[in-house]
């Protein structure tokens, strides 16, 4: 049986423990204190007189803080406890724990309070594999502190544990001989500090102290400021306001400040296992959150630009101009047993980088950043033609060069079996998935706009536009399945069309690569019974050989995917369909208390009544957190045109009146209003057409 897990985090330092606050790691229980992709505590167990405690309740106070209420006892029969225990823990550069024992009796008690502590210093990659470690362990006691160390050549990681109350310390933990007066209490502070490499001893203390009120700040803005600076949502539909607030709070928790970003933060991919830079996830989340928190996009662009590929490196799948896939900081990356230093095996992040740069400028008017990143943007555009066209047919395709630890499928559907023919066969490599061509098209057009506007290079702009038009023409010929009325999910290595029906068609609308004449048929498929579950568009259509409503990319519904599909539907004028998706995904969000999971089952809505969460360990997931934000933008029809924000609402009727106030951008701050007029209740309901008020500038 798996006990409920509690997670708190600060940047990429996090604790996963059981509901008592204990950590007892095993191959099947990935618990512990983790920092920079390494485990620093694999055991942290509290006992009183040799007995473990039982949980009464757990409060998640903030994303970095929890409180555990415990009592002694067997846990089978509840007896009025004579003692109770409170552990309050705040994570940051290790963690701080305030441990309090209360005596409820009218006589004094003498107790032995014990913390057992140990660390296996496992790399995040090996946590579940229980691999044998190459390095050496050491434990020693110095100046009243317990030091747990791991050394492999010059690679050093250390956990330092100390307490404020007198303790007898041995190599396996701390023991407190405690006497508590009648109705009295006893307290100690426990500090656990993590340190790395040449930085051993850098942090003398964890970030939070007693009371956990004054942290050493590491984010440029506090949570309160973060919320206050974001646009305010007022809406007749209270659950939408709640979902919006949840998204902002989760986005704050997902901010990650890489060691090289000068204290600025960008969105990490998921909490807690993916608190690191991911090219694709950071870019998609930055796009979703642009109207709300545009500075995330600026940091994403700068940091990914700093790390842009500059050479050919087969191990890392790196090319000049390529945007990174994932960075890791643990032992296996350090010793090149994994390629994540960083790994570049993503084929969509590079065109998406140009798309984000342009979209960012359209919202913010920050031409300085566009000038600063001219080299990076040109290198990214160059990569599309020079390095990504593996088959020499004018399309982006992918085939990993790192055959051992590289990723096979390098676009967003990155599981090994995600791209298949209708009959289930897997195509060969190189593989050219369709959405990649859409991104390339969009990146060229947006790059052309930037070239003309900021880089003052009209010849380059003309060339990019010619290439984009040519790409669009060829794509609509080579990927179109005329007998089915949708685009092939990919081209096989031999040029054959991989004919399964998948949500990738929706992303094509977002890119604008679809001929207007073909859009109607594509939309009919997206909203038709094979793809549309009632909660959203499935990743793969019912009826395909590999379809599975709970297969990771084989039939589940991804909120992130749907938010971009809704944006694409609006781009082609399908307002009612976009509102339908927004309404259904936001309904699902309400059923998940405002926090959309990474994916949910593709079961028909009429069958389950309730969206079935796909079991993953990461929650919140950044691009799911961003989905309600992009859906709000889509429903309100927010589009920056020149120095103005155009508002063209098309809201589902369930929303009622909606106001989004103080939207930041090149216009300063602006408000948008709308009223729900599109009937989406029930299947086959006739849309009545949407209308709403325009924006108000101030």
């Amino acid at each position, binding site marked *: 049986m798996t006990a409920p897990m509690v997670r708190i985090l600060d940047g990429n330092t996090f604790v996963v423990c059981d509901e008592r606050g204990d950590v007892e790691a095993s191959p099947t229980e990935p618990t512990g204190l983790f920092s920079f992709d390494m485990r620093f505590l694999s055991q942290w167990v509290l006992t009183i007189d040799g007995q473990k405690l039982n949980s009464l309740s757990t409060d998640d106070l903030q994303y970095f803080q929890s409180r555990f209420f415990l009592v002694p006892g067997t846990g089978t029969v509840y007896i009025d406890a004579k003692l109770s225990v409170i552990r309050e823990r705040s994570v940051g550069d290790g963690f701080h724990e305030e441990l309090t024992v209360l005596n409820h009796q009218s006589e004094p008690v003498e107790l032995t309070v014990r913390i057992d502590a140990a660390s296996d210093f496992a790399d995040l990659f090996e946590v579940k594999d229980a691999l044998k470690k190459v390095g050496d362990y050491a434990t020693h006691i110095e100046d009243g502190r317990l030091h747990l160390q791991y050394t492999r*050549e*010059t*690679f*050093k990681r250390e956990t330092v544990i100390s307490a404020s109350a007198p303790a007898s310390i041995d190599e396996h933990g701390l023991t407190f001989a405690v006497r508590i007066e009648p109705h009295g209490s006893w307290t100690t502070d426990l500090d656990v500090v993590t340190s790395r*490499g*040449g930085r051993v001893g850098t942090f003398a203390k964890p970030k939070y102290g007693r009371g956990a009120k004054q942290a050493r700040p590491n984010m440029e803005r506090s949570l309160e400021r973060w919320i206050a600076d974001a646009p305010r949502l007022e809406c007749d539909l209270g659950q939408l306001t709640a979902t919006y607030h949840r998204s902002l709070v989760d986005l704050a928790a997902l901010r990650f400040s890489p*060691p*090289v*970003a*000068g204290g600025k933060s960008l969105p990490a*991919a*998921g909490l807690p*296992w*993916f608190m690191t830079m991911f090219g694709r996830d950071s870019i998609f989340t930055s796009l979703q959150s642009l109207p709300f928190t545009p500075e995330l996009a600026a940091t994403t662009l700068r940091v990914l630009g*700093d*790390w*842009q590929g*500059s*050479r*050919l*490196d*087969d*191990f*890392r799948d790196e090319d000049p101009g390529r945007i990174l896939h994932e*960075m890791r*900081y*643990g032992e296996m*990356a*350090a*010793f*090149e*047993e*994994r390629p994540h*230093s*960083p790994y570049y095996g993503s084929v969509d992040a590079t065109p998406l980088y140009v798309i984000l740069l342009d979209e960012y400028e359209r919202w913010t008017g920050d031409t300085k950043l566009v000038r*600063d*990143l*001219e*080299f*990076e943007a040109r*290198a990214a555009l160059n990569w599309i033609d020079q390095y990504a066209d593996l088959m020499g047919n004018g399309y982006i395709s992918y085939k990993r060069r*790192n*055959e*051992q*630890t*590289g*990723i*096979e*499928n390098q676009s967003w*559907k*990155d*599981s*090994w079996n*995600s791209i298949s023919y209708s009959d289930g066969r897997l195509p060969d490599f190189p593989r050219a998935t369709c959405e990649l061509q859409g991104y390339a098209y969009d990146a060229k057009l947006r790059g052309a706009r930037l070239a003309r506007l900021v880089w003052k290079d009209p010849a380059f702009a003309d060339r990019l536009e010619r290439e984009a038009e040519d790409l669009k023409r060829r794509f609509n010929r080579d990927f179109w399945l005329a007998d089915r009325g949708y685009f092939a999910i990919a081209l096989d290595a031999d040029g054959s069309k991989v004919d399964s029906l998948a949500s990738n068609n929706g992303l094509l609308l977002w890119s604008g690569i679809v001929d207007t004449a073909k859009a109607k048929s594509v939309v009919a498929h997206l909203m038709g019974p094979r793809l549309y579950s009632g909660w959203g568009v499935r990743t793969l259509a019912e009826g395909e050989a590999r379809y599975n409503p709970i297969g*990771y*990319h084989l039939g589940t519904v991804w909120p992130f995917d749907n938010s971009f599909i809704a944006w694409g539907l609006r781009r082609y004028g399908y307002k009612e369909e976009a509102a339908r998706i927004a309404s259904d995904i936001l309904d699902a969000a309400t059923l998940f208390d405002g926090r959309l999971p990474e994916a949910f089952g593709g079961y028909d809505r009429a069958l389950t009544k309730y969206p079935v969460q796909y*079991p*993953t*360990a*990461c929650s919140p997931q950044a691009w799911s957190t961003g989905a309600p934000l992009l859906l709000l933008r889509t429903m309100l029809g927010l589009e920056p045109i020149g120095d103005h924000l155009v508002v063209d609402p098309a809201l589902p009727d369930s929303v009622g009146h909606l106001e989004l106030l103080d939207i930041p951008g090149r216009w300063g701050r602006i408000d948008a209003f709308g009223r729900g007029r599109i009937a989406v209740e029930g299947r086959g309901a006739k849309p009545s057409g949407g209308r709403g008020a325009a924006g108000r500038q101030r």
Partner: protein
Amino acid sequence: MADVTAEFFDRLAERGIVPGFARTTGSVRFDLTRADQTEYWRVEFRRGVVTVDRAADAGHAADCVVRTDASTFDDLATGRANVMATLLRGRLEADGEPELLTRFQRLFPAPVKRDMATSSARTIGKRRG
């Protein structure tokens, strides 16, 4: 053996203008230890122009100071080692503005051919759980 580190810096100095460094301003000092001796290299970026100063010493301030042993730097300068992996391994330290080291690392050459790790597994993308 040829002084591959000196060759690396000489080539860099000869280039003078480095594409992609237009937005980078700042200086990096490399303190490379060989036996009991430390050799110092100071590189300055200003609007895309790079200058290399070999005569610098520890008193010559820089925005980012990188310390490693000379043989490790030889490996970096010839594509036998990767900066980030070396940094994570603790063989190299950077003080000051680490962004400058991130910018600088793109100047190192492509890796020489290497044997890859032996394990092979089906990739499942980001799924975990």
